[in-house]
């Protein structure tokens, strides 16, 4: 018997038992749609959190002057002088002192009005060093970022965030143009890639200048070595707490503080701010995956049941087909076709339903749904496997019986 005939026979059997085939397909469809949607919801939530974290700079620690108060706010340092210095940043950058800190970016910032030709725009001017780019996980879309040479030479250069560039230069290319900040003309050397607004601060609206230039030429001030913040990047997500510890120890030592409670600085992790949200999302994902697994299991058991019953009540048919000359192989193939057709149709319908749900559901619950290719492929494979195992296995066992034994079975 050739393949075409095998398919025809298999499909005929599917058609001959319409209700049963329909129920089997329905079970698979619902199971798969449920898996796709629930896994998608969980992944969507996780992706949202992950993108929030990465937009703030992955593995980021922020050292700020002053100490935390019990209520979680930050109390200002003594007077206006900052307790953090460039020397602190330099010490933390040493790989022997803090091996788990990959990069250090000291920053000073202040709101300034920038002018370019007739346009003016008030924004945050950040003085920092070249590490800032990687610490904040930013990239440059045009031109270049600050270099160590800029820093050494107190160069009159700046890098604009995209919104700032748009406000000052409209559609024109800002690279090479001049911006005046507090009377100091700065050459625009690059534009940052947009990351979107995050939280209270708009990451797309700022101007970045060399720390030295900011300290000596723009902001001025009495203590040119003090910095507003020190941004630290841990070598990885796993070493974040080690990096925290190293920074804490080193700064306490540098500042000559023996009791950690009286520290004149605070180290915060961006991740720590999001930890609660992440863990909630992770719980949600596990819960959803569990529900998806259970629904697939229930659907799978339903399918197994239908397939088993279907094969059992067709053992007579198998016996007859054998008596008329079908080999066990042909019988197996017939049931394989039947089971895979049911599994595949159910799988494809399930994916279709899942995709429709993924488009429709966010409008209702305002949660993003990420369709995971692995979950989709996995659940289809699962559906086909369920059909095949529970359709073909009993059929192939029946095909091994002597025809008359199969014919006699009731």
């Amino acid at each position: 018997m050739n393949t075409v005939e095998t398919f025809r026979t298999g499909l005929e059997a599917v058609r001959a038992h319409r209700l049963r085939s329909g129920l089997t397909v329905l079970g698979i469809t619902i199971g798969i749609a449920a898996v796709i949607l629930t896994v998608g919801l969980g992944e969507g939530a996780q992706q949202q959190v992950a993108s929030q974290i990465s937009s703030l700079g992955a593995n980021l620690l922020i050292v700020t002057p002053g100490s935390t108060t019990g209520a979680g706010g930050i109390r200002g340092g003594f007077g206006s002088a900052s307790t953090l210095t460039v020397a602190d940043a330099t010490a933390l950058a040493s790989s022997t002192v803090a091996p788990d800190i990959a990069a250090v970016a000291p920053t000073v910032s202040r709101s300034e009005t920038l002018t370019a030709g007739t346009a003016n725009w008030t924004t945050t001017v950040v003085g920092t060093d070249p590490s800032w780019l990687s610490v904040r996980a930013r990239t440059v879309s045009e031109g270049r970022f600050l270099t160590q040479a800029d820093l050494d030479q107190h160069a009159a250069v700046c890098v604009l965030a995209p919104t700032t560039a748009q406000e000052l230069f409209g559609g024109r290319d800002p690279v090479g143009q001049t911006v005046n900040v507090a009377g100091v003309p700065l050459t625009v050397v690059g534009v940052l890639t947009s990351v979107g607004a995050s939280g209270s601060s708009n990451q797309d609206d700022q101007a970045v200048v060399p720390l030295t230039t900011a300290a000596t030429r723009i902001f001025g001030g009495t203590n040119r070595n003090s910095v507003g913040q020190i941004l630290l990047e841990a070598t990885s997500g796993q070493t974040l707490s080690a990096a925290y510890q190293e920074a804490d120890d080193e700064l306490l030592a540098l500042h000559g503080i023996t009791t950690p409670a009286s520290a004149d600085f605070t180290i915060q992790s961006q991740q720590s701010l999001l930890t609660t949200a992440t863990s909630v999302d992770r719980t949600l994902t596990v819960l959803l995956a569990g529900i998806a697994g259970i629904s697939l299991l229930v659907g799978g058991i339903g399918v197994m049941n239908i397939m088993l019953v279907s094969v059992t009540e067709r053992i007579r048919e198998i016996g007859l087909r054998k008596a008329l000359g079908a080999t066990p192989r042909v019988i197996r193939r017939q049931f394989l076709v039947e089971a895979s057709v049911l599994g595949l149709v159910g799988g494809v319908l399930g994916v279709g339903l899942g995709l429709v749900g993924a488009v429709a559901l966010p409008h209702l619950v305002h949660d993003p749904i990420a369709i995971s290719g692995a979950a989709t492929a996995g659940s289809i494979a699962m559906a086909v496997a369920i059909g095949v195992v529970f359709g073909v296995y009993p059929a192939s066992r029946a095909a091994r019986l002597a025809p008359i034994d199969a014919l006699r079975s009731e």
Partner: protein
Amino acid sequence: MSPGPTVIPAGRSRAGAWGRDAPPVIELDGVTKTYRTGSLEVDALRGISLAIDEGEYVAVMGPSGSGKSTLMHILGCLDVPTGGVYRLAGEDVSTLDETRLAEIRNRRIGFVFQQFNLLPTLSAWRNVELPLVYAGVERHERRERALAALDRVGLTDRVEHRPGELSGGQQQRVAAARALVTDPALILADEPTGNLDSSSAADVMGLFDELHRAGRTIVLITHELEVAEAAERTERIRDGRIVDADGPGAGERR
């Protein structure tokens, strides 16, 4: 009771005249069949030795439960003996693998079941064409041959009916048509006229006569003397043993 198993010398049949080098189509040697259901054992066949030559027309008679169907299933390679040897055209069937057995059932044997065994979801002609499907015959040829076979059993006007829409006799004739459609050399029929009125029965018996004249080997089970009389030879079974090898009426003489 009955004497022990009797070996039928091949020379007694007409086809045997073709010479010793042509082995009997069917050769049973001390075949036994024991059914086990739980702890219960039923000896359905207790040592059957029998030879049937090519072209012979043999009737098997015996009381209900004597093992006729069991014997027939073994002859048709639908079941395997518990003991003894069954040689089909000289080949010991216990040495054949599943694929070869399937091929034998498909090409060489036409089996008419006592219970018809038609597939309820298929129409009459689709039931009849089934053996041809497994023989790899092309689709339109299958239909032609199935319709021709149904025509031979007088069911031209019922080809699209499903078994459930046919009378018992009509179903039996569909089953007969299915056995004939591959034009097999060996036809095994388990009470092929059991559900037929005398005129349909006569039609089917006429068909067997025709096949016999065309050189087919035919073994049929029957309860009816006049059916057995159509055959050349009658084997009588009682309690799983062959009791007499005489022609029809042998039972009455005892």
